[in-house]
């Protein structure tokens, strides 16, 4: 197995973070991370950014009357055809 450079690791960095890798690509990255503190720090930071943004994804309460407005839209859609 050819050792990866940091730049090569960076290309698959987020796929690794998202657990989307398996087999040789995964083994190569894990082997690199065992030796490379800098990539480990970058990985930890990206995990932090992910959690930070994830906790701030927009949220909103379902507005009152939404279901009846959807029913009206459906009624209009049927009526038009």
């Amino acid at each position, binding site marked *: 197995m050819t050792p990866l450079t940091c730049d090569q690791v960076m290309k698959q960095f987020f796929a690794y973070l998202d657990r989307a890798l398996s087999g040789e690509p995964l083994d190569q990255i894990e082997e690199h991370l065992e030796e490379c503190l800098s990539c480990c720090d*970058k990985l930890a930071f*990206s995990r932090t*950014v*992910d959690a*930070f*943004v994830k906790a701030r994804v*927009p949220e909103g309460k379902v507005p009152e009357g939404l279901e009846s407005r959807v029913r009206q839209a*459906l009624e209009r859609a049927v009526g038009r055809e």
Partner: protein
Amino acid sequence: MTEAEGVRSSTEGGISAAPDIAVRHRFEQLALPHLDRLFRLAVRLTGTVQDAEDLVQETYVKALRAFAALRESEAVGAWLRQILTRLVFDRHRTEPREMLVGDLEELDRFSLYDLVWDEDPLPYSDNLHGDFLAQFDDEEVRRALLALPEAYRVPLVLLYAEELSYREMAEMLEVPLGTIMSRLHRGRKILERELWECAKRRGLVRSWDR
């Protein structure tokens, strides 16, 4: 067969003849129980309650028209989420927002970690990167996420909020797995760049360009 595979055939070219009242009632019975979850997904994808409501209505009307082609009524929730998500995801094909991404090679080289390290905006911090992030308020982060072109924002929201796997996203959005991989990679890079630009505007870091 996954949920997404189960509903795929029914969203392809599924415009049927005009639905009558009995069909509409049957559709409402099956589809309206999913309204709250759909609405929450719509807010995450659009960022505002009003845009989310418009998107949800558009989704239901589109779904009603394609209802006759739905083969598995138990998969209606996944089918509705797919229609809604595709309505947002496909917008980029008619809008030039992709242009905002700029030079992709330059984007791939961008590293917020390195910039924060080099600029050292908080010289007395013993948790430099964490403290850098802590300076943003929630609204700034949301704006950075919503500033992403749909092609990048939709997969990121599906990852963060719906916790879909790459494969599930590829099936839902009907794009190759490699496309999902690169959109999630570059989407995060653009997001990091937006946060850096925001930090510069706020005077958190010196504002010369690198």
